[in-house]
């Protein structure tokens, strides 16, 4: 991997009171990488992901995004978040807005696109996620899988440099997982840099370019998916994989 470093994470720590969720995480995310974050529940993998766009404020350590330290005090968080898309487990679509408005709200209100351009972009993205006829529907009218595909389109509307996925298929009925993973696979193939917290081992193995195992708030294994799943020496990871595979 020799793409340019997008996210440089140095000794990241996060405490909730006495609970030390992250105990010093250091890694780099390079352009074009698809990094799968895997680990037992409560290991801090979601907290780690949410720290990357500062939805969680780190307690210690540093994060540099495209060379700028974003954990400093003088940084415009809103500006940085425009370039870091996020997809949530619970979709978090805006229920009071149509699908089109869900997608165009941020680009229009932030003055990145005018209304006309944003609508065109929304149509384009809806086609890409396979829901071109849902522009005027409301979120409640969609299935879980469709909602998540819209959430991906909404994040993409901002034209981010990296996209974070926080267990994007965990809240879905089993038969809808495939359609969301398929969109994510296409996104990965288009060259999007992605960091994905997931329990989908198949996705991690086939789509990810790197797999990271977080346990007890630190990275226990950081490897290519082949090595990660086939020949890891780490006992904790072996144990974890034997339970989930």
């Amino acid at each position, binding site marked *: 991997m020799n793409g340019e470093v997008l996210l440089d994470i140095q000794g990241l720590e996060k405490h909730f009171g006495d609970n030390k969720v992250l105990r010093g995480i250091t890694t780099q995310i390079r352009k074009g990488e698809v990094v799968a974050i895997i680990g037992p529940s409560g290991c801090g993998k979601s907290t780690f992901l949410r720290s990357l766009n500062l*939805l969680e404020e780190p307690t210690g350590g540093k994060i540099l995004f495209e060379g700028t330290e974003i954990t400093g005090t003088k940084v415009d968080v*809103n500006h940085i978040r*425009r370039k870091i*898309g996020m997809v*949530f487990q619970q979709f*978090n679509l805006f229920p*009071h807005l149509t699908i089109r408005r869900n997608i165009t709200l*941020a680009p229009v209100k932030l003055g990145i696109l005018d209304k006309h351009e944003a609508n065109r972009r929304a149509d384009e993205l809806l086609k890409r996620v396979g829901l071109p006829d849902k522009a005027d529907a409301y979120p409640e009218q969609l299935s879980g899988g469709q909602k998540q595909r819209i959430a991906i389109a*909404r994040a993409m509307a901002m034209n981010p440099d990296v996209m974070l996925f926080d267990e994007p298929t965990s809240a879905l009925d089993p038969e809808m997982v495939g359609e969301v993973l398929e969109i994510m696979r296409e996104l990965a193939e288009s060259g999007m840099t992605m960091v994905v917290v997931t329990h989908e081992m198949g996705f991690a193995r086939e789509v990810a370019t790197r797999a990271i195992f977080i346990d007890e708030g630190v990275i226990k294994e950081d490897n290519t998916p082949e090595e990660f799943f086939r020949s890891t020496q780490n006992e904790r990871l072996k144990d974890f994989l034997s339970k989930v595979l």
Partner: protein
Amino acid sequence: MSFQERFSLNFIEKGRYKYLVSGIENTLLITIVAAAIGIALGFLIAIIRSTHDKTGRLRILNALCKLYLTVIRGTPTTVQLLIVYFVIFSSVSRPMLSAFIAFGLNSAAYVAEIVRSGIMSIDPGQTEAGRSLGLSYAQTMTYIIIPQAFKNVLPALTNEFIVLLKETSICIAISLRDLTYGTQLISSQTYDYMFPLLAGALIYLVIVVFLTWLFGKLERSLRKNER
């Protein structure tokens, strides 16, 4: 005296119905102005309070708001009206202005707590989604949280404005010629209490039923988005 004669005596003779008409005008005017003040100030307080609850910022403003809510909600509306009229505007007789201010400030306190509960009831994931797209806290509030909160609290707000409308009848304490005072003016001339008071009650009832219908319609039109 027959029904028609009493009706005529109370409402037709010497154009006494005009006491009721101008009373309705004043009652509605006070309600509308007070509701407008209540909404503006109430939303402001709600936003300050919920911002503090969610982020821990605005500590001093939040403390001021809490003090305000405690005082307003802890004292009778009538006493508040009398204080505004006799103490704050002691040197000039400004009953309408006093009513606007007293009822507006009073209503704001109740609106604030209703709206705050609405804001706090919105899933934090909504704020996170807005913020993760790069929207500022204020933009997220304006375009995502408040519209949803407003829809959720509309029934409670309707109720508050109905209470407000009825509560304006205490304007009689500062001799402001509202609807209730209008009925008393008629009684004082005709020595008949039943007809004017029943007429007044009926008028309040009709206005309340109309307002309930109107807000119900608004609520339904906002809700239909979700199905």
